């Protein structure tokens, strides 16, 4: 069989690889491949670690204290745990020049989803309207991915927004706070559904509630954020390990792919990558090339290849990302209770707010505060730290955070291009993004509705603590080389085959013509499997 060269080991790359390996293709995967460390003390709970580790502060804050969220760092309510910092570690020359966008790139084995929160939500027909496919076309691949990764979920009110696919496991055990939220929703359902068009239900999460393929089920150690020690929580490195079991799979890490070369018939002949340890360029012959490096990196490789061949600096338009708004809340019924550290740590409750169009749908993830580090929250309380601690102790179990996601559409003024002026250096990626004129009003209206919905659930939103995250923070980038039914430059076919280079396939978010408010990772994986099955 032909050799397939895949660039990147993120969520889409590994699932594409596994599918073509099963079909008998020889696969070479090129990756920078920064690796994490094995979880420590596998049986210990979050609280046990504070007692039993020799140097717990090094574990929770990092050897260099990089996990301390300083008061001058106003951006977030949480920092990246030291055990996940490798996910965002940089590579020389990869930094982008940006305007209106704060990108996060990953060069980790498994990509950005090594640090995701596990939300898996299939797109419905409304959301696939601008895609050249319907839900029934991608459903078999959602089923397949669900079988591979393990998804806990249930049919409930949220199913109106996300179809129920096969291979769902029983849902996770709820924490006390989430139980209260859902039981209050039962009482307020009529108002919330009819007046606010707001529907609550269980999050669907890529976490096992029964053993699967040598992975243990969730044991509720409260360590999700710090790195699941049981393997119950899915990350793409698990699938990368599955790929490594195939004799026809070759994985080369420490290679940063720079560009591909093509002939006069625009057929790709090789890919050029820099060996990071030796700083030397290596060329790998290509029969079929699959870019799965993530929208920004894949686009950069695409742009650089054209630049290296012709000197032309082209523009890719239509960059998308989900705007996210963080809305903290206090559940009045939980005040004064003790928090339970031995629970699943990420979101267990989600909600959808219906709009008149697919782009008006809002998707919210509700995380109740359990085992995250709390110093970033305490310092945001508008009192001195001693008083803030006293207040926080009694509020801790009552605190939660809504992560409200907005959809995005492709627009011509959101552009990726190359900065090539400095001839002594490699081209750098330049990103320009501006939101729509109506976005501020849209955000304000959404916040008003969320506050109203949570008030009904006996929760209040403290004034002055809502945080509109910068564009780029969601890391759901998409749309620069979209799928299109009609061939046009810088687009792909419905099976993600480039219309510019016949032996090039793009299987990451690059090809999405619309970005719904839901987390895209599940669809990235399913779409990659679809391409592998339909085009290879």
């Amino acid at each position, binding site marked *: 069989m032909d050799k397939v060269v895949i660039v990147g080991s993120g969520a889409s790359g590994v699932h594409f690889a596994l599918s073509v390996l099963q079909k008998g293709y020889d696969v070479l995967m090129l990756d920078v491949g920064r690796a994490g460390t094995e979880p420590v003390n596998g049986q210990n709970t979050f609280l046990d670690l504070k007692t039993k580790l020799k140097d717990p502060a090094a574990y929770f804050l990092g050897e260099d204290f990089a996990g301390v969220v300083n008061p001058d760092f106003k951006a977030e309510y949480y920092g990246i745990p030291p055990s996940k910092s490798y996910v965002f570690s940089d590579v020389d020359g990869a930094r982008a020049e940006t305007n209106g966008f704060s990108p996060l790139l990953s060069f980790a084995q498994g990509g950005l989803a090594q640090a995701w929160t596990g939300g898996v939500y299939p797109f419905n027909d409304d959301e696939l309207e601008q895609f050249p496919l319907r839900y029934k076309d991608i459903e078999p691949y959602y089923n397949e991915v669900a079988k591979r990764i393990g998804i806990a979920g249930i049919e409930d009110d949220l199913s109106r927004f996300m179809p129920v696919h096969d291979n769902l496991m029983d849902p996770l055990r709820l924490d006390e706070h989430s139980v209260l939220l859902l039981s209050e929703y039962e009482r307020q359902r009529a108002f919330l559904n009819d007046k606010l068009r707001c529907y609550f239900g269980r999050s669907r999460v890529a976490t096992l509630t029964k053993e699967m393929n040598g992975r243990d089920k969730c044991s509720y150690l409260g360590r999700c954020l710090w790195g699941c020690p049981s393997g119950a929580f899915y990350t793409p490195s698990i699938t990368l390990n599955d790929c490594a079991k195939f004799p026809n799979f070759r994985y080369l890490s420490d290679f940063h792919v720079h560009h591909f070369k093509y002939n006069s018939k625009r057929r790709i002949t090789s890919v050029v990558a820099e060996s990071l340890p030796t700083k030397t360029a290596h060329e790998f012959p290509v029969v079929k090339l699959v870019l799965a490096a993530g929208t920004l990196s894949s686009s950069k490789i695409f742009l650089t290849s054209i630049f290296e061949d012709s000197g032309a600096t082209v523009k890719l338009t239509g960059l998308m990302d989900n705007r996210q708004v963080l809305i903290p809340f206090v559940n009045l019924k939980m*005040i*004064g209770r003790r928090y339970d550290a031995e629970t699943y740590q990420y979101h267990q409750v989600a909600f959808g707010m219906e709009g008149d169009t697919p782009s008006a749908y809002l998707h919210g993830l509700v995380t109740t505060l359990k085992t995250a580090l709390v110093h970033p929250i305490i*310092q945001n309380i508008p009192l001195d730290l001693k008083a803030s601690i*006293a207040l926080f102790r009694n509020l801790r179990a009552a605190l939660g955070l809504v992560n409200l996601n907005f959809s995005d559409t492709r627009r011509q003024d959101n552009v990726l291009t190359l900065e090539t002026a400095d001839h002594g250096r490699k081209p750098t990626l330049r990103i320009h993004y501006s939101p729509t004129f109506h976005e501020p009003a849209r955000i304000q209206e959404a916040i008003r509705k969320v506050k109203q919905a949570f008030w009904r659930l006996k929760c209040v939103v403290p004034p002055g603590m809502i945080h509109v995250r910068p564009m780029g923070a969601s890391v759901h980038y998409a749309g620069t080389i979209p799928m299109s039914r009609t061939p046009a430059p810088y687009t792909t076919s419905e099976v993600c085959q480039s219309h510019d280079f016949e032996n090039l396939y793009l299987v990451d978010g690059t090809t999405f013509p619309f970005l719904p408010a839901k987390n895209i990772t599940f669809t990235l994986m399913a779409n990659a499997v679809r391409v592998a099955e339909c085009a290879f």
Partner: protein
Amino acid sequence: MKEPTLDSRTLDRECAVFCRYLIGEEPNDYVKGKYREAHRSPSWARSGHSDPSDHFLVKFARMSPWSTKVIDTYARVFRPAMLVRKKLVLLLAILESCAPTHAYLDAVDSRSLFLLSLRSLRACFTFALMVVVAVVLILPLELAVRGGVKFFVSWVPHNG
């Protein structure tokens, strides 16, 4: 401006005062060790910004838990990113990361909403009072220190 390097004894004393202020307990050797280690860690020490008045305010805060409260209150209102606050947040991060001090942060005082509301009101009232004290005490001192530095800088001979 970088904070002048502090000797271990000064850092231990500072850690003890700040710890008594934050959780009402003395720090153990582990906490003191981590506090010292952070001050020598390039990434923590480099982050943020401090000026001469910050160093003066750290010295004042180090005197007692009460003076720490005054400076912390002042910082929360006027300059949340100042050096004292950065040190307090660092210590808070260390305290929540290890036993037995994390237990203080994990505890609850009461399940009575009425009692908790009363306590919160008292905390807010005390905070407001401390803001007044801080404005009367610290604002003039800080302005004087800043003015003094500017005055000094203006008298430094320019080279060329």
